[in-house]
């Protein structure tokens, strides 16, 4: 199956996107920011529509809007983490604006936006071009690299923000930077996995890793490993059985890993208490 260009592109982009989602996701779960990641990924959809209305490339719109929302959340949630109510309200407001944009698009353009919408929502990893795949790989690798490089201060400021700030770690700046990093990963992954599904790759492998081990280095490595594994397996599955979309296969395997981890950690109550 690797004889096909589109499969090689999908594996190239998928591997590094999964790597980024696995490592970033481990912190997203630890910091209980899954809802923020969810909001960012859905907003990416609005970004794509906005770009279509203005006539820009959809990638520009996706990046611009997710990064702007992340900056906004960082500014609003200054003292503590952004409140889930605030996330919910801002997020539904932006979706409402998206609805307006869709109406504008439907009245102006040819109206054949249905397929494009579905692609933004669910991704189309098998239709990535070579340049897109390489860009995804670079962004993914870069994001994972940033997380690994900032691992210790980020972990410290997540687990004990008060002590960390006393020790001179810029807790607030790190929090804002991390939100921007989530936005970056989200925006890049949206094109491959889709605005609705990529949350699974962010939450499920990381959630499984958190269930299985509470040791940080093991956890983040396991999370990355599970994400990449789910991606590889999912792509192969979808290639073998074409009626299963790639997004469904990848998310299905991630969720399966989470379910197994859940059962395993239930059977070992001692590990949970530790």
């Amino acid at each position, binding site marked *: 199956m690797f004889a096909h260009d589109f499969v090689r592109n999908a594996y190239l982009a998928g591997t590094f996107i999964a790597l980024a989602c696995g490592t970033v996701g481990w912190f997203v779960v630890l910091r209980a920011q899954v809802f923020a990641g*969810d909001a960012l990924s859905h907003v990416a959809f609005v970004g794509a529509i906005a770009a279509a209305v203005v006539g820009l490339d959809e990638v520009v719109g996706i990046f611009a809007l997710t990064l702007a929302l992340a900056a906004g959340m960082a500014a609003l949630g200054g003292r503590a983490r952004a409140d889930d109510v605030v996330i*919910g309200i801002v997020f539904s407001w932006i979706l409402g604006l998206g609805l*307006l944009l869709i109406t504008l698009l439907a009245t102006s353009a040819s109206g054949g936006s249905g397929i494009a919408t579905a692609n933004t929502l669910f991704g189309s990893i098998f239709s990535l071009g070579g340049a897109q795949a390489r860009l995804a790989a670079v962004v993914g690798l870069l994001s994972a690299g940033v997380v690994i490089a900032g691992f210790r201060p980020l972990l410290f400021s997540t687990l004990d923000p008060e002590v960390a700030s006393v020790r001179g770690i810029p807790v607030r700046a790190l929090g804002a930077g991390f939100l921007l990093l989530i936005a970056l990963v989200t925006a890049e992954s949206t094109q491959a996995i889709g605005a609705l599904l990529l949350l699974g790759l962010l939450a499920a492998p990381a959630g499984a890793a958190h269930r299985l081990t509470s040791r940080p280095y093991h956890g983040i490595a396991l999370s990355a490993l599970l994400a990449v594994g789910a991606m590889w397996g999912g792509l192969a599955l979808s290639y073998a059985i074409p009626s299963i979309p790639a997004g469904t296969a990848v998310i299905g395997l991630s969720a399966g890993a989470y379910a197994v981890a859940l059962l395993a950690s239930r059977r070992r109550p001692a590990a949970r208490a530790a």
Partner: protein
Amino acid sequence: MSNPTLSFDLLRDVREVLQFPFMVNALEAATIVAVLAAVVGWYMVLRRQSFAGHTLSMMAFPGATGAALAGLPAALGYYLACGAAALAMSATGQSGRRRFATESAAIGTVQATGLALGFLFLSLNSAVLGGMETFLFGNILAVTRGQVLVLLIVALVALSLVAVIARPLLFASVDPEVARARGVPVALLDVGFLLLLGLAVAATSQITGVLLVFTLLVAPPAAAQLITAQPVAGLVLSVAFALAIAWLGLGVAYFSIYPASFFITMFAFGLYVAVRCARWALARHRVA
């Protein structure tokens, strides 16, 4: 239909709106949805379960596509999928100190799994994707008489359930440890409330669309809770806000070319921002 225009006579405008059966249906549906969402949403905001509420609302997608694949009515699919997701979330949730961090991962996983299934159903069905946007954002003006009736029954059932468990649920939401010590079945209430939220969300999302359920579920209760912490006053205020937003949104949409959901979202956001600003100004005023 001639182009509707606003006159300065408000009564005449209202009468003009009400002469169309589809507008009457839409207003009735919006009223029921607003009351239901405002009451259930008040508890949701209190319990900080917005993410769970959002996830339940997304379950309308596998519900609708699954029902289409199986040849069942879409509404049934909504209720089944929301119920299943509510149970899945309660099964993966854990009590104790580490609850919060891992819980959000569980909710996210449930959501992504549901959406992935929905996508699978959609592609198996090879249905037209054109209806996607209506489905995501709803079309309240297309509500039928029968839908309004079903909605009314579901809302009455849900609201009576809330009335029955109102006090213990409040206790369990505010202070679960003490409530458990006092013999309140906290775990049972947790599951029960998620199911109730699923019921409300399934009923609501058919009207407002999957993505905008949130507007009526979060914004009016959140604004009400900024104003008062008192339960009864808060619930009344929340319902009043939701009704005002829904009616205004529909009314304005009638005189405009843009969809009602858009206006409802904008008004909801405006309300929350206004209340927050007012609170902030008041606090400054008191300090000064």
